[in-house]
């Protein structure tokens, strides 16, 4: 089985993977909401961090917990917990981001019996020179809570190892992303997304191994279709692989992305330092920001534009979860920026389930805008 197929398989059986892992290693599993939970610390405690995600199925269990204008991703996520699909978790943690996911967290704490439910008060004033110190304070509490859960101390050695493993993971994924700069990328956007999402679900050692296999396979790999238009995807939470597949089948390839199941999640490494927690904290404060914790447009926009140019994109799909205010704020100016650089954009709004038919028309029309030149 190729590495790509393995990613696909594990993603499809992610709960089984986590439960098997528990059995195999005797370790505990900690779920995370959003991407501001310090994976290094969880892993150093001998636990498996997994990101809690939805399934894109229609459900009717969250309406009595979350107000209808909470973003669909957060509803979907809570629904998984309410349906008992995450019963194997020993802990659930969240790093402060936006108020929607906070609603998911609060309801999880109140209505789902996970042993440890922990809130990391992430300092969102990222520009403040005091943010790192504050986060170290938060991490100290989090570390203690994890130690209490496992009954074992988290050592500097353990932290070093975890930092090293996750840095490797980030570096390897970046190498894969580099190959997407090729005129004919050897990997589709949907496949790349499966790679990143599994990195949020798998033991980093095992994921690294698969990444190495993948990097061996890719140079000889050729997609069985034309690359078509080179597109970028930008937006809020996104793990709807089926949608990306549908989109790429219409005649385009996603060559780069900026979202939290993609580049934004893994782009920056931890710069090791004597004070381990401070080193980790510094990474999360200064990492590629999620707009929910950033109040500085240019910080994000400059990075977005740079990768758009480096990966030579011909268009950008900007999407948001319905009602997602942190992202909605950015979109008009983001569109304007792309326009100034002659990169056409298409904006789509996502719900738990999406109207494939309507979206299809829009995407096709968007592709035609670029392609009908031939006529």
């Amino acid at each position, binding site marked *: 089985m190729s590495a790509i197929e393995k990613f696909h398989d594990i993603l499809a059986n992610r709960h089984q993977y986590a439960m098997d892992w528990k059995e195999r290693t005797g370790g505990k599993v900690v779920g995370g909401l959003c991407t501001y939970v310090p994976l290094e610390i969880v892993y150093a405690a001998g636990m498996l961090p997994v990101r809690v995600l939805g399934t894109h199925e*229609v459900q*009717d269990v969250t*309406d*009595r917990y979350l107000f209808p204008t909470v973003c669909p991703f957060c509803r979907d996520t809570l629904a998984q917990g309410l349906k008992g699909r995450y019963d194997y978790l020993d802990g659930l943690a969240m790093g402060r981001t936006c108020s929607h996911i906070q609603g998911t967290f609060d309801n999880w704490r109140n209505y789902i019996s996970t042993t440890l439910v922990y809130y990391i008060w992430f300092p969102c004033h990222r520009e403040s020179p005091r943010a790192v110190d504050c986060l170290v304070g938060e991490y100290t509490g989090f570390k203690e809570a994890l130690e209490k859960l496992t009954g074992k101390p988290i050592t500097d050695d353990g932290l070093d190892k975890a930092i090293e493993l996750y840095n490797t993971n980030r570096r390897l994924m970046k190498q894969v992303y580099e190959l997407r700069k090729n005129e004919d990328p050897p990997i589709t956007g949907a496949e790349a997304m499966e790679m990143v999402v599994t990195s949020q679900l798998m033991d980093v050692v095992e994921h690294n191994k698969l990444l190495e296999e993948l990097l061996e396979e890719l140079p000889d790999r050729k997609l069985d279709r034309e690359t078509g238009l080179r597109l970028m995807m930008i937006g809020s939470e996104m793990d709807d692989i089926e949608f990306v597949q549908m989109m790429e089948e219409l005649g385009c390839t996603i060559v780069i992305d900026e979202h939290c199941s993609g580049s934004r999640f893994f782009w920056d490494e931890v710069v090791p330092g004597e004070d381990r927690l401070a080193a980790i904290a510094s990474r999360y404060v200064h990492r590629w920001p999620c707009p929910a914790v950033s109040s500085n447009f240019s910080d994000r926009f400059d990075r977005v534009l740079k990768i758009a140019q480096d990966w030579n994109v011909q268009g950008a799909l900007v999407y948001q979860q319905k009602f997602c205010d942190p992202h909605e704020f950015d979109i008009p100016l983001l569109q304007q920026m792309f326009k100034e650089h002659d990169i056409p954009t298409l904006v789509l709004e996502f719900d738990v*389930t*999406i*109207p494939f*038919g309507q979206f299809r028309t829009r995407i096709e029309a968007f592709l035609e805008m670029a392609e009908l030149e031939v006529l």
Partner: protein
Amino acid sequence: MITAGIDMGAQFIKVVILDDGKVTARTIIPTGFEPLEAAKKALDNAMKEAGISRQDIKSIVATGAGRKSVDFADSSITEVTADARGTIHLNPSVRTIVDIGAEEARGISCDAQGKVLDFAKNDKCAAGSGAFVESMARALEIKVPEMIAISLKSTKEAPINATCAVFAESEVVSLIHSKIEKADIAHAVHDAIASRVSSMVRRIPVEKDVALIGGVANNAAIVDVMQKHLGTEIVVPENPQYVSALGAALSAAS
């Protein structure tokens, strides 16, 4: 004592005449553009059926969305109260009532005396209502009774995601295009409504027994899927469409 209850629904006006706790007449006519005229007519019809005249009626109570326009009624009560009253009269063991009408759905939780403890209604969305069934039947190009009949025979799941009635219609059309059986589409339509209504109803405590009333309670396919969604058996009182009117007539008697 003879009393009358008038339910001024969005689509139909229902009248019930009560004589010492016994229903002596039951009439229904479309609301139309002149609801007041229609209400008079419905009442006239009912009086004829009961063989009584206006002087015989001690008190008239109106309910329903248009209740305030009934100038000949002695007083009015909201549908929520009327629903609870009527249902408990018919089935005293009911604690949760679901009423699905032409344009609205509501869930009511009540005690053994029919006192309302809590209720929920759908806000500005027609997707969980009789109107939705009707427009989907139109998209399927069949009549509602036929849609119900085939829906009960469905064997496969089909998805309908849109909650906007118009978009759901086009989803139905595209399901037809992808050669999905009409029976399965009909089932999906009912399932979509039930899912919407039940997720609204879950905002109040759902305790047994659960009753379904309103015109849509006549729809066996909806009753069937609602039981699955709420995970409990559902009682449908006799003449479910008249329960509100009955509640109003009961209230007129007290």
